[in-house]
């Protein structure tokens, strides 16, 4: 008995195991191992076995529990190739590989993740941080191969060619992205519509950094930006509180950041990876934050050495809008002598005379332009090319000429009554409104009556309507502005900001109507007769509005403002040249950098070449600078060049923007 005490089974008997025999005829509760295989394993086993068991091929492994973190699946249609999964992977198992076979489109990169399952630890951080929710985890957990190379897998919508059940999915709690934008403070509508005070206040340092922290640095925005700004980089600079570095990065590709930080069409935000599921990073306002917080003396550090004439060649620039200023800036940085001619008494073009004061105040435009002047660009205001100095003279005096004269004439409507003096074009009105805002005009001098209808659905129409609201309130104490457009709400070309802010300022809107006649009685405008617009474009996508005549209305008003597009003014092109310059639909024909065919010395940019917005104008200016440099550099005399100058020159060429793809609104 004493021996038995230390034994594990005290009453062991050699017949003990006999009791198992009672299970012989019972149904097994376990699955026989030989049939639980994935198809891949089963065919592998069959290939290597002497007895080919067909039954094996029907076998399937048991379904895993919900939320299992199994092998990844990635829906390529949804995936945008942002690479955030590769960035976050704690074991460095994910790599982005180039897939040139994917369609190159705005808001997507031609790359997709591959996962090294020799390293993956199945932590699911990649799923939690996925911007599009395309990367998921399946319930598949069995995979075997004798070839180590077979453990590098590219997740697709299916796993091993089969549709599989979804395992781990991210929840609101586990989502690592911050989808909500840090709210931007706006002046209250009742307050702001009494004056031309800037509506958007701008971020404080704390808010800017919080907003910057939302960026995943994927760089998808960059390729949608017409000038391809270093967007993720300057956002990172904000997060690290390196305003100076951010300023240098911004000026590499955009010499009008103060303007663009306020009124850019921000295609970057439309393309933003965060915008797939949430609110885009406020890229435009972050840029503005850098400019607003950069003191004037910090601008001296943008160039490590003062910019001087290195190349003995002179360039004349007609107009001082965004494309002209951009061309002037880069040409000057390349070392040319640059003279800009502006007909009005302020440079800036659309930024000084088109866009309203409450969106972009003068001081912001001046901050940008002052730096362009500071590096030695000569701006001659009150000098109109064509009258004060002719294009022929420019051609003789200068080695190259850049035209950036813009679309500054209002397009008018060809309907009865449109020639009345109280039917006013947007581009005739906006410069006056701007002059009123800066105190150059008096309120009495403005021909603004107590009620108005604005025709147009673009941002400019909203500019007119909101300017009118302000002026009517100043003049009459209350406003009565109605905006009507051909386009209905869902295809309204204006940005959401304008639509929302205009609505807040009590601009009435009647969308989806086509103007037919200006109603005039006793020599005074009484209103606008419209028909309901059924469709704006025909089946081929051409502009060809269809109306329902039975749905006729009259919008009563004392004035009608037309904002249905702008037109160029080519009076300055002399008769001798008219047949040498091809103009198609108001735009001058030229090659990619804006060089006019047959006129090597002549370059164009901005609205008269490509349009339609400020930032594309800036891009045109940069490309033209590149084109002019290629045209002049070799044949001009040069001074000795410093190392820094060579580097700068290389950078300006390297950063010359390519034509950007316009992203669709999500």
């Amino acid at each position, binding site marked *: 008995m004493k021996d038995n005490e230390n034994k594990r089974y005290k009453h062991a008997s050699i017949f003990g195991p006999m009791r198992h025999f009672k299970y012989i005829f019972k149904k097994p509760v376990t699955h026989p191992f030989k049939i639980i295989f994935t198809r891949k394993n089963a065919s592998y086993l069959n290939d290597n076995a002497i007895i080919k068991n067909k039954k094996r091929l029907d076998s399937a492994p048991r379904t895993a529990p919900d939320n299992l973190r199994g092998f990844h699946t990635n829906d390529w249609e949804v995936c945008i190739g942002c690479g955030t999964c590769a960035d976050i992977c704690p*074991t460095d198992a994910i790599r982005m590989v180039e*897939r040139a076979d994917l369609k190159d489109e705005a808001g997507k990169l031609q790359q*997709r993740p591959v996962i090294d399952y020799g390293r993956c630890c199945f932590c699911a951080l990649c799923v939690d941080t996925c911007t599009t929710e395309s990367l998921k985890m399946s319930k598949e957990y069995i995979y075997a191969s004798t070839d180590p190379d077979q453990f590098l897998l590219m997740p697709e919508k299916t796993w091993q060619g089969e549709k599989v059940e979804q395992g781990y999915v991210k929840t609101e709690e586990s989502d690592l992205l911050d989808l909500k934008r840090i709210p931007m403070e706006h002046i209250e509508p009742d307050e702001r519509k009494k004056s031309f005070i800037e509506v958007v206040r701008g971020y404080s340092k704390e808010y800017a950094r919080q907003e910057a922290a939302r960026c995943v640095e994927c760089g998808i925005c960059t390729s949608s930006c017409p000038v391809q700004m270093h967007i993720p980089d*300057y956002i990172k600079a904000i997060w690290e509180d*390196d305003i100076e570095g951010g300023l*240098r990065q911004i000026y590499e590709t955009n010499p009008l950041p103060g303007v663009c930080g306020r009124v850019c069409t921000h295609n970057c935000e439309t393309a933003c990876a965060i915008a797939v599921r949430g609110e885009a990073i406020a890229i435009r306002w972050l840029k503005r934050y850098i400019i607003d917080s950069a003191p004037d003396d910090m601008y001296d550090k943008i160039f490590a050495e003062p910019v001087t004439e290195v190349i003995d060649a002179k360039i004349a620039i007609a107009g001082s809008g965004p494309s002209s200023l951009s061309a002037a800036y880069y040409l000057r940085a390349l070392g040319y002598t640059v003279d800009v001619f502006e007909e009005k008494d302020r440079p800036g073009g659309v930024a000084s005379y088109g866009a309203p004061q409450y969106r972009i105040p003068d001081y912001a435009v001046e901050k940008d332009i002052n730096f362009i002047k500071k590096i030695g660009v000569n701006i001659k205001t009150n000098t109109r090319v064509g009258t004060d100095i002719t294009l022929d003279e420019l051609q003789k005096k200068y080695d190259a000429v850049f035209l950036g004269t813009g679309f500054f004439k209002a397009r008018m409507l060809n309907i009865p009554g449109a020639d009345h003096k109280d039917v006013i074009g947007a581009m005739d009105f906006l410069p006056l409104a701007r002059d009123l805002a800066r105190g150059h005009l008096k309120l009495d001098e403005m021909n603004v009556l107590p009620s108005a209808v604005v025709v147009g659905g673009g941002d400019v129409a909203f500019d007119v309507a909101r300017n009118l609201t302000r002026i009517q309130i100043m003049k009459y104490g209350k406003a009565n502005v109605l905006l009507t457009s051909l386009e209905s709400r869902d295809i309204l070309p204006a940005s959401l900001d304008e639509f929302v802010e205009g609505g807040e300022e009590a601009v009435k809107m009647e969308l989806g109507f086509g103007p037919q006649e200006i109603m005039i009685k006793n020599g005074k405008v009484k209103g606008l007769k419209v028909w309901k617009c059924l469709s704006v474009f025909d089946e081929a996508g051409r502009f060809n509005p269809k109306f329902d005549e039975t749905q006729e209305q009259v919008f009563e008003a004392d004035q009608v403002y037309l904002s249905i597009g702008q037109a160029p003014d080519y009076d300055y092109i002399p008769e001798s040249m008219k047949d040498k310059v091809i103009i198609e639909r108001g735009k001058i024909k030229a090659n990619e950098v804006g060089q006019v065919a047959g006129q090597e010395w002549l370059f164009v940019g901005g609205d008269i070449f490509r349009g339609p917005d400020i930032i594309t104008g800036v891009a045109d200016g940069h490309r033209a600078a590149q084109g002019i440099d290629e045209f002049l550099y070799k044949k001009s005399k040069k001074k000795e060049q410093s190392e820094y100058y060579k580097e700068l020159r290389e950078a300006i060429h390297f*950063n010359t923007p390519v034509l950007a793809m316009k992203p669709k609104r999500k």
Partner: protein
Amino acid sequence: MTNSMTNVEFVQNLVKSNVNVLQEHITDQYQVHFVVEQDQVHYILNILKNAGWIQMSYLSAIDWPEENKFELVYIVFNWEKPVYVQIRTKIDRENPVMNSILPIYPGSKYYERECHEFFGVKFPGNPDYEKQLILENWDDIPPMRKDFDPEAYSKRKFPQREYSETYIVQSEGKSKLAKMEARKQRAESLRGGKK
């Protein structure tokens, strides 16, 4: 103890009347947690076990490197009164020692081994706590500590394989992605202002 009392209220009463609760949180009607002092853990677990919380469901830890603490979490369950009770306590991170609860819950033997393996917490009283359980021949700091660097470990232990480039489809001519990379480097070189 009346019938109107919920299970959670019962536990609250029980725990609070016996030990000093530093913090409590009721997740829902089946889950509640109490933070107590380190030296009261055994005492309160004993009381809970005698009150019916007989099942040791889980024991693990949370690393709080900023506070220099590990937070031990004991989860026990009662089949009569279905409430998971978590007893939490913070212990020193530099020298993490916690007496074993083996005498109270023998089932904690493996949990303590696991906790030692993943966090490095020592459990004197458990003869096997230092034995390896899941990680074989681990030669780094315990992997669930927040200062463990999985990327460096991966790189050291599993050198990047040179896979055949089966998945790459490159474009003819200049690669757009290569240009993006070059631009990024250019932008990076412009940094270095006020930090």
